[in-house]
């Protein structure tokens, strides 16, 4: 049957080719090209995502339901080994901590990046390109090296912590449970600082992109209408930069929530994040199903959070 269909199509095609004057055929060919081109161009991207995102995600989901062990091999037994998901409750503290730290570092990033992006977009003049390169420059060094550098910066005997001890800043922060009384390294604050530092460029760049597109005359107009600089910022600049804020917060929050390097190097056992748990479940305990279940729940939680966030913030102008 299929053979016949193919033959028929071949005949049709030959017919069209042998009658080039046939107006209908040429026309439909033209329309067809323009209609299918975008899809054709999308194919590589779709294939890429299907192969490296959808397939691994499905495998992750499957694996989280497997029974067995490395020695004996894994198998799927209907209805699946759902007990792996009980680990999610066991590690609820690490989940909560991950989202708390990611949220805090996103806020810090926003507070640091907004003035910086504003300055680069409006006030930097001929230095604009140089400053943008400087924002990206840390990426020329490995992520690991940059994080390790913080160990030196925040070392117990280092100038930063010595000063903070002298000024009793560490005591104050210790009251908030952010640091210990005599150190910053291996405390929650160190992890949040590390996350903030490592993901700052992801906040600066989208903010810059949306501020740079803004027409500065709008601020002038606001001032002509007797708005104070603060009101102009609040009512004109900030709303117009919102797409950048949304993009920046997403780009910061999502990787920060899954990060484990910062907690591993700058943290301590009491501030481990869910990324550390997943890493250890995979490599040290070699409990692949539990590790998969934790990864899957992490992904799902982030997806839900992002969904509600984006719905509230709106995506119309999101770049």
């Amino acid at each position: 049957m299929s053979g016949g269909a193919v033959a028929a199509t071949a005949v049709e095609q030959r017919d069209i080719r042998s009658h080039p004057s046939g107006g209908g055929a040429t026309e439909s060919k033209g329309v067809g090209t323009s209609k299918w081109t975008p899809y054709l161009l999308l194919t590589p991207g779709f294939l890429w995502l299907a192969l490296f995102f959808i397939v691994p995600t499905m495998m992750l989901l499957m694996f989280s339901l497997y029974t067995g062990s490395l020695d004996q091999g894994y198998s799927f037994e209907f209805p699946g080994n759902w007990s792996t998901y009980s680990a999610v409750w066991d590690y609820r503290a690490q989940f909560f901590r991950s989202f708390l730290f990611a949220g805090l570092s996103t806020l810090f990033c926003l507070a640091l990046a907004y003035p910086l992006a504003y300055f680069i977009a409006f006030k930097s003049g001929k230095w604009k390109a140089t400053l943008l390169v400087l924002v990206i420059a840390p990426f020329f060094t490995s992520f690991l090296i940059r994080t390790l550098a913080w160990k030196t910066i925040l070392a117990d005997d280092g100038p930063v912590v010595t000063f903070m001890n002298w000024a009793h800043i560490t005591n104050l922060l210790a009251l908030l449970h952010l640091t210990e009384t005599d150190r910053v390294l291996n405390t929650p604050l160190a992890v949040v600082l590390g996350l903030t530092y490592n993901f700052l460029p992801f906040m600066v760049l989208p903010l810059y992109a949306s501020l740079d597109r803004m027409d500065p005359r709008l601020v002038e107009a606001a001032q002509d209408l007797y708005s104070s600089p603060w009101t102009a910022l609040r009512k004109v600049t900030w709303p117009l930069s919102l797409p950048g804020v949304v993009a920046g917060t997403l780009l910061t929050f999502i990787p920060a929530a899954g990060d484990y390097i910062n907690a591993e190097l700058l943290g301590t056992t009491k501030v481990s994040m869910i990324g550390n748990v997943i890493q250890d479940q995979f490599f040290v305990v070699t409990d692949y199903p539990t590790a998969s279940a934790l990864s899957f729940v992490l992904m799902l939680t982030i997806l839900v959070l992002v969904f509600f966030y984006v719905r509230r913030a709106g995506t119309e102008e999101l770049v």
Partner: protein
Amino acid sequence: MAQRPLDPMTEAVQAAARAGVPRRRLLQAAAYGTAAVAASPLLAACGTKGTASSSSGGASSSASASSTTPDKSDTDKSLAFSNWQLYIDVDAKNQNVHPTLDGFKKKTGVTVAYTEDINDNDSFYAKIVPSLRAGQDTGRDLFALTDWMAARLVRQGYVQKVDKANTPNITANLIDSLKAPTWDPTRDFSAPWQSGVTGIAYNAAKVPEVKTITELLTRPDLKGKVTVLTEWRDTIGLILLDMGKDPSNFTADDFNNAVDMLQKANDSGQIRQFTGNDYSSLLSNGTAFACIAWSGDVVQLQADNDKIKFVQPEAGMMIWADNMLIPNLAQHKKNAELLMDFYYDPAIAAQLTAYVQYICPVKGAKEAMAKIDKTLVDNPLIFPDDAFLAKTHLFMGLDEATEKTYAAAFNKVKGS
């Protein structure tokens, strides 16, 4: 071909038996092993029959069909060797020249492709195990892994038996204390590359001597300045010793008590961090005052800072070795055996140890060392005497389920 399918079973069963796996699980493991390597279910069925007879008979098996491949050693004079970083001698002028490997080439004509791609046992295992499980060549002929990981590979039947006819030096020169680990009692599968002990290190410029693990985990002047190792066998082993238990033979209760002790120290804020190799920088820059440490690292640290001291706790130390293993389907098995044997020549062993400064597993190397570097001869962390060795203990071999439970319990303390 007709009788060969029996062999992987024998291999797997023996491997599992060594690890002390219950019989039911042992058979399952064996069946899985064959199914994974022999693609045909028919072969697996044949193999299952063989299991019963050979495990009861205890017949020794030659290398199996599915774990070997035609050995190219005689025609292709090369060898792929994966090892840890900073674990071999290096020429003073050229980082890429290893004098002992050049000596090996001169003697045997074999060129060694030496790669330092082992960062830690777990990640290296994760790297090679998919190939091994699928019955494919890992692209490596030889690698060195720590006892417990070597035990796991032997248990899973992923490494090949060494042909002892090719390794007379190992038979003659392997030091007695490393001759019979529980997971490879006659050293059929492995030979130590280097060995070391785990004990306590402290910075004498900051604190008085830390004599015991109890002191390390409770002394107030060390609060927040202590690190322990993420390699849980080392950390828990030392705690077990401190509690008067034997790390090579302990019960689940003992283990739980040790974990409790660690948990208490962690809750009180005594422990600052769980570390891998990176404790060495923390100790030398004063971030940590005392820690659980590996001997070779401390010897190297002492070269720069004489205030760093290594303590041999009265209760005992943990001893471990990194073991050379030949994975299944290695293409140059004989070359690998020649290399293993080459490093058991006392003169070569001394040359290697003079550079890496871990415990040398070769008899006679001490005498050879006298010609290279006299200062190292009397260092017990390099050439331990009997009194020193009497204080060292091996960690117990564990079956997979126990291993997983213990690792999970330890990681709970770690917060992950």
